[in-house]
């Protein structure tokens, strides 16, 4: 049914403003949504950091009196929950959002409005769970919420209800985003962008989305069981009814272990972007890096009971999970070697981004070594539930995930904002962080092996851990100070940073071929790709922008842009209100509960229909 005359170019009748708060509330642009995630996640990172500072102040000296035991429980629970679900995961999401379409040569993600929805649900979920502080009932069962400790019998307050409902809300955000990115990466790659030509960040992000869609449903079910036990009197975690005392732990860790790979793989992806650029060489062993990422994800579903070596699973289960846990160290170690070989023989430029990436190599390796020690069940019997484990996971989460994320921030800030972060302030940030991080967490290996248990709000003097706690607390204050330097750098460089240009680092991938910051349509013409490093190889049909060229608008280029819309915001808001209603069931205020639940559901469904029945562009 083709006509011979060319169709008229599409002209948008909608000219939205791109300034002001309404433009942010209605945006469906992946770059803006990425910026929203970044700012919100860094804010929650500071909140979680503040919670840690109070913890370290309490533990600085023996028999601290700063906070009560109950407050302390809330602090470490919220520190963990905030850092994992409200800081690190959304920081990764910021990069997924900003980078994936740019790296694969697309104009946006597959479902721009669903993308906005994911962000608003995250924001509302984070606000919801932190609202508990206002009534002194913050979650207090640890970030892992073991039942039966978290059942109504042992935890009758609202604390756990905030936690369960908050996590369910956040799960919706992560799942929706995962469906979006999977579809985007499978279906929106530029011509010639074969899977094995994609940048490594996009590969690691792709693998992470599969981990998300397979792991989150399991914790959803665990949380449903807990919520039903608490509100409706079901028996899932009731020992008197014959329930399995390990059911929660199995379900939680089947989610929880893949979750830690969700936390680290994006950071690995960022390192794989940063190190080749600053070595002036391609990534060493690209296919192996892809396959090891896949293997880590796959094996990651087979190691969960290494979190349960002390519960009495029996020698066969212990041995099997010990072996699988040791095995997963292999693909991870391979990556470290490949990054080293990437730098080897290269002309290495030690920018702040490169320093953070190399910092990950060093610090994550230390965390990996203690991890391998945990993999042995007999050794773990001494280490588990002691500060040795706290040392391990902070090395892999801070020394791993956060270092990688900071590398990504220094690397991509110029692309996002058009200006470079200050290298001078960045060096201060890096070195104070590196020293502070080691001061805080290295002594914990020793206090752990000396017998200091986890999750205690105070300890008597003279047990062999006084000195270590003192050093850790000083380290923590140094870390806080270093982070403030970073925040200052990030805020100041918006106006005063050096203008970056389209490719300040001489990097090879597609996102560096367009202006900084990119125009809303990303690419004036979709590139055709024939190599992994288009800007180094100068192959394919990639137009590299040069400063001085005019930047046309989408309308001038005839590119249809999605309409900004407030509907995802409202669907997210009404969904949160619906979930909030569940809290009133606990308070036996059924009229209020029904109003919020059914009113919220009705409003949500109505705005959802309105969203689904309106065109995207």
């Amino acid at each position, binding site marked *: 049914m083709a006509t011979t005359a060319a169709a008229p170019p*599409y002209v948008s009748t909608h000219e939205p403003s791109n300034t002001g708060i309404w433009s942010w509330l209605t945006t469906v642009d992946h770059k803006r949504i990425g910026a929203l995630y970044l700012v919100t996640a860094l804010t929650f990172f500071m909140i979680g950091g503040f919670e840690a500072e109070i913890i370290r102040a309490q533990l600085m000296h023996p028999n601290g009196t700063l906070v009560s035991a109950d407050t302390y429980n809330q602090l470490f629970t919220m520190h963990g929950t905030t850092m994992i679900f409200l800081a690190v995961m959304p920081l990764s999401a910021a990069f997924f959002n900003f980078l994936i379409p740019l790296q694969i040569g697309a104009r946006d993600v597959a479902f721009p409005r669903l993308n906005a929805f994911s962000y608003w649900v995250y924001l509302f979920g984070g606000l919801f769970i932190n609202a508990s502080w206002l009534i002194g009932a913050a979650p207090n069962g640890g970030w892992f919420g073991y039942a039966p400790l978290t059942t109504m019998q042992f935890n009758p307050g609202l604390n756990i209800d905030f936690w369960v409902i908050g996590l369910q809300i956040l799960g919706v955000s992560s799942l929706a985003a995962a469906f979006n990115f*999977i579809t985007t990466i499978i279906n929106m790659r530029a011509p010639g962008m074969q899977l094995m030509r994609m940048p490594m960040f996009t590969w690691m992000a792709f693998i992470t989305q599969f981990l998300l*869609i397979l792991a989150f449903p399991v914790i959803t079910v665990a949380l*449903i069981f807990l919520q039903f036990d608490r509100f409706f009197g079901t028996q899932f975690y009731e020992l008197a009814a014959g329930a399995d005392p390990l059911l929660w732990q199995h379900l939680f860790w089947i989610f929880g272990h893949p979750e830690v790979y969700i936390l680290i793989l994006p950071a690995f992806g960022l390192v794989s972007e940063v190190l080749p650029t600053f070595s002036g060489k391609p990534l060493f062993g690209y296919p192996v890096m892809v396959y090891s990422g896949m293997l880590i994800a796959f094996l990651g579903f087979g190691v969960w009971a290494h979190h349960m070596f002390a519960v009495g699973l029996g020698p066969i289960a212990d041995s099997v999970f010990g072996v699988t846990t040791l095995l997963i160290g292999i693909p991870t170690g391979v990556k470290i070697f490949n990054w080293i070989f990437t730098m080897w023989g290269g002309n290495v430029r030690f920018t702040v981004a490169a320093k953070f990436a190399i910092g990950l190599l060093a610090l994550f390796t230390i965390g990996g070594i203690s991890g391998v020690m945990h993999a042995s069940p007999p050794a773990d019997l001494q280490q588990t539930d002691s500060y040795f484990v706290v040392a391990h996971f902070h090395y892999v989460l801070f020394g791993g995930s956060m270092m990688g994320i900071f590398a990504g921030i220094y690397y991509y800030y110029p692309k996002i904002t058009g200006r470079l972060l200050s290298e001078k302030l960045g060096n201060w940030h890096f070195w104070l962080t590196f020293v502070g991080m080691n001061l805080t967490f290295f002594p914990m290996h020793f206090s752990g092996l000396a017998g200091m248990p986890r999750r205690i709000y105070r300890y008597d003097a003279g047990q062999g851990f006084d000195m270590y706690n003192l050093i850790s607390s000083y380290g923590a204050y140094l870390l806080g100070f270093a982070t403030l330097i970073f925040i200052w750098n990030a805020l100041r460089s918006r106006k005063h940073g050096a203008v970056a240009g389209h490719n300040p680092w001489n990097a090879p991938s597609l996102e560096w071929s367009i202006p900084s910051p990119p125009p809303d349509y990303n690419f004036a013409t979709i590139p055709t790709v024939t190599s992994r490093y288009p800007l180094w190889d100068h192959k394919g049909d990639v137009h590299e922008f040069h400063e001085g060229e005019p930047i046309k608008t989408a309308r001038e280029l005839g590119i249809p842009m999605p309409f900004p819309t407030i509907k995802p915001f409202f669907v997210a808001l009404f969904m949160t209100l619906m979930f909030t209603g569940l809290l009133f069931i606990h308070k036996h205020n059924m009229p209020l509960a029904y109003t919020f639940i059914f009113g919220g559901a009705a409003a949500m469904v109505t705005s959802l229909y309105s969203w689904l029945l309106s065109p995207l562009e």
Partner: protein
Amino acid sequence: MANPAAAVEHHGHTPTTTGLDHRKVAIWAFIGSECMLFASLISTYLIYKGRSVVGPFPHEVCSPPVCDTVMKPILNIPVTSASTFVLLMSSLAMVLALAAVENADQPKHTLGERILGSSKLWLFMTALLGTTFLGFQAFEFTSFVHEGLTIRTNLFGSSFFTLTGFHGAHVTAGVLWLLTLLAIDFKRGLKPKDALIVDIAALYWHFVDVVWIAIFTLVYLIH
């Protein structure tokens, strides 16, 4: 060589890498996560099988002293077989609905062709059969409650009602989806170009049916 994507851009939409619509790819990812959801619910049911301290039980008689009075096995296989048949027939209706939409532009000459080719009829039948299944579930749930099995009675009650309740909620969402498609059909008609959205609804519907087959087998049939 000219960029093939550029030629299409003037009409507004770049072709997808796989040739599939985005929504088709997304529904499969969604179904993947739903598999893990139901796998967790079913696994819990299986772990708790035979571990309830008090009755009623699914397949066994519960005698004193475990129960106050003698309680028969509570699952009614003949009735649930009927409801399973109804749900399976709803999947057939869904197939016919999709086929009707895909062939909406074909001329229909006989009454038989007009019946088979009526998307409104088959969408309605799918929704009706789905609702009938839900009616059976409601009947089953209320009769269980009358016989002394609630969601809080024992491990069996908790895991059974949660599992089948979540399945029923998914069927309900599916029925609402089908009724929405039916409303669109009445409003502007569903043409072959709409086959994609009906196909996606069909994928979801068939998935919900397959989950029920797993539940029926593992909960009702296997002792």
